[in-house]
């Protein structure tokens, strides 16, 4: 008995020693800034001999009903199974998908779609004008209580003109409507399946897409398989795709290194460099449409003075911000929206200039600076950003108290405010991704006079009548030249008013094994795998 005891003890000890050995190495790696992933360099290069891939993602899927989804991750999965009338290409430009062509009337109240013929849903239901009407009616009906109803709330009526022509009539002009149709929320669900499952469609997705639903074990994995009857010849090129939610960054990277995952996203910026180029793994970073900004409550002293706001813009070194906070995976912002957003117009950046910042503060009557509070979320990335801002503004004698908040608390503090005058918010560090890819959704919710909390996200409480009327002008027409003119002027005015210190445009970052080609992230952070294939 004693002997077996010792045997067990010995095993335990060996294990401990092995762990201890492993540990010292990794702490070293951490301190030199190469991250935990560096020890994976001894891992073998993984090869692929089948066409089933696994994608490691950062969170659980919430729903598989596109009309009732508001997280980009669920959209990524849905986009393998569903398609819309129109969609976004690699650069968020609108392209026809199930529609052959589309047109709008001059005042943006009527949108007509000509549909492609011969397309079937995965359950055999033909795709036609009736199917489109069933989908738009569902989205437009407030009683359906769908999360994406707001994108279609202005639809008055959907008319079937003939089998392959649909006309959508709006109750008021809405020039950005075609972008709402391109939004993944407007993807088409089989009307037969909708009738059969009702809102349970979230668990039984049926679309026209290249992959069919196979199984979903919430919290563990979601699997889709090749749709053999897909209408685009030669696609899809993979047999199946399995999505595995892996919330912990380090674990997601390990999954990629072992070959359990063929692709992962997002890749934490701290670890991106340490895995890139090793063992057949590539990290790909591309500009997104996600912007990071520092909003200032323009109703409050000292931020009611435009010189103070401009001074803060000059006092923050954006290049350093990108290097320190984003590990280099970002670009400086040159307008309040990102370049990949439609109707973007570049402005003259506030280049880092401490002397100018100090001078502006002096002119505004704050030669000795002031003390203020900065709110933001309590994630480590956001806290790091806020501390960076604190350090930058200290250079011009502005003392910033950083207050990181848990999401629920923050939502109470910011969106629990009914009267703008009582808002306690001073400075706020936030981010925004206009999911429709249009300037309207990049500007109106954040900077229009109607968007004060709690109704929307104007945490700067910025209101400029000229901007507000330009927003309306841009919505009243579907004519791109007229819309562009309005957005050009609007962006210029806002930039000069400086209700924000515009910080950066994030990169989307994913990593794949080199044998996986054609899978990529769109600037809105959603995945496109329709062209993905395995190439050895």
């Amino acid at each position: 008995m004693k002997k077996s005891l010792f045997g067990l003890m010995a095993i335990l000890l060996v294990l401990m020693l092995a762990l201890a050995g492993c540990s010292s190495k990794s702490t070293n790696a951490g301190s030199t800034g190469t991250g935990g992933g560096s020890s994976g360099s001894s891992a073998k290069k993984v090869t692929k001999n089948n066409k089933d891939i696994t994608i490691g993602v950062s969170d659980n899927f919430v729903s598989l009903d596109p009309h009732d989804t508001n997280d980009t991750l669920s959209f990524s999965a849905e986009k393998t199974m569903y398609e819309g009338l129109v969609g976004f290409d690699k650069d968020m430009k609108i392209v026809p998908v199930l529609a052959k062509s589309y047109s709008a009337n001059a005042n943006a109240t009527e949108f007509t779609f000509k549909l492609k013929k011969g397309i079937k849903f995965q359950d055999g239901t033909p795709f036609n004008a009736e199917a489109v009407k069933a989908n738009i009616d569902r989205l437009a009906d407030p009683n359906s209580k769908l999360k994406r109803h707001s994108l279609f709330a202005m639809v008055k009526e959907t008319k079937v003109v003939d089998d392959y022509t649909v006309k959508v009539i709006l109750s008021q002009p809405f020039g950005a409507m075609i972008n709402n149709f391109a939004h993944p929320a407007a993807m088409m669900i089989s009307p037969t399946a909708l009738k059969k499952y009702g809102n349970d469609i979230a668990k039984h997705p049926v679309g026209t897409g290249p992959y069919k639903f196979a199984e979903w074990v919430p919290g563990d994995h979601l699997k889709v398989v090749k749709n053999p009857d897909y209408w685009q010849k030669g696609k899809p090129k993979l047999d199946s795709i399995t999505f595995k939610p892996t919330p912990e960054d380090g674990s997601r990277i390990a999954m990629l290194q072992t070959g359990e995952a063929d692709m992962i996203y997002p890749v934490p910026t701290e670890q991106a460099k340490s895995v890139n180029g090793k063992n057949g793994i590539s990290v790909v970073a591309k500009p997104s449409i996600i912007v990071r900004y520092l909003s200032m409550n323009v109703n409050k002293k000292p931020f009611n003075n435009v010189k103070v706001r401009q001074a803060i813009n000059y006092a923050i070194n954006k290049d350093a911000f990108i290097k320190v906070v984003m590990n280099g995976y970002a670009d400086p912002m040159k307008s309040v929206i990102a370049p990949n957003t439609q109707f973007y117009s570049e402005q003259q950046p506030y280049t880092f200039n401490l002397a100018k910042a100090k001078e502006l503060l002096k002119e505004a009557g704050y030669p000795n600076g002031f003390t203020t509070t900065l709110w933001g979320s309590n994630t480590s990335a956001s806290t790091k950003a806020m501390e960076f801002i604190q350090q930058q503004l200290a250079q011009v004698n502005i003392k910033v108290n950083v207050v990181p908040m848990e999401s629920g608390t923050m939502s109470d503090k910011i969106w629990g405010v009914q009267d703008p005058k009582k808002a306690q918010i001073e400075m706020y560090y936030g981010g925004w991704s206009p999911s429709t890819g249009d300037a309207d959704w990049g500007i109106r919710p954040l900077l229009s006079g109607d968007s004060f909390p709690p109704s929307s996200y104007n945490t700067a409480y910025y209101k400029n009548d000229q901007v507000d009327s330009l927003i309306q002008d841009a919505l009243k027409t579907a004519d791109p030249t007229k819309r562009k003119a309005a957005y050009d002027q609007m962006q210029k005015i806002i930039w000069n008013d400086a209700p924000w210190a515009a910080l950066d445009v994030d990169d989307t970052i994913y990593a794949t094994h080199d044998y996986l080609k054609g899978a990529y992230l769109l600037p809105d952070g959603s995945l496109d795998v329709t062209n993905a294939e395995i190439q050895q």
Partner: protein
Amino acid sequence: MLKYIVRRLLGIIPILIVISIFIFLFVHLIPGDPARLVAGQDATAQDVAAVRKSLGLDKPLIQQYFTFINHILHGNLGTSLKTKQPVTNMIAQRFMPTLWLSLLSIVWAVIAGLLVGVISATKRNKWQDFTGMAAAVSGISLPSFWLGLMVMQLFSVKLGWLPTGGLESWKSYILPSLTLGLGIAAVIARFTRSSLMEVLKEDYVRTSRAKGLWERKVIWDHALKNALIPVVTMTGLQFGFLLGGSVVVETVFSWPGLGRLMIDSIAFRDYPVIQAEMLLFSLEFLLINLIVDVLYGILNPQIRYN
């Protein structure tokens, strides 16, 4: 004994009612508006109000509580605000992975902990004791988050023996249960050591040694049985915590269990899921307590139940 168990089981009911009130209030006191989180980032104020109404969150708290209790009595734990699925199904799916993982961790932790503890106590101040206790101290102090990532680097990335996470085969259990169990094994080892050393000083141990009993029989049959009582209490508690969702380990190993469900639900203010999980954890704790009490009686028949 049977009568005692039945009475204790009945006694759980009023406790659960009190707990349910606390859970309900506690959940509703967490800051954050679930209606806004449900409605999503792009929602307008009207959308949020509509969602609040449809969820019944606009009603007075007391009325919400009675609806909650009424539903529970009908076996309905509600519908998740986030996924719109019945909470009962969500918990049922996540329960077994957490149960098996916890059982496996506790079993190996008890075996390893007892062995190290007994050896340390009997070889007091010798090298076996020092090694055992050094290992135990490191086991207690290693954060399971870090430990999890390290065993993953070693066994998955470098050696390629085991999967990094998820739940696919028996292999998936090894790394998470190792990570979860290590801390517990260490605590058990320390408890066993000190408790056994106390007992070894007792008169009856001296008597049985004087009688000429084998040392091994003295320790394993006589001394250890008495020394085990505090160890059992502690193990019971630890097991309760494990079942309550080993949040960190489940996150590191992407485990489809209750701990991760809890974290996701709190982040989303998914009231029905949080409430149901907290009730379930309370019930588990009460049951484990009962099991611990029954084990006392088995270990030491002098403890009587009336």
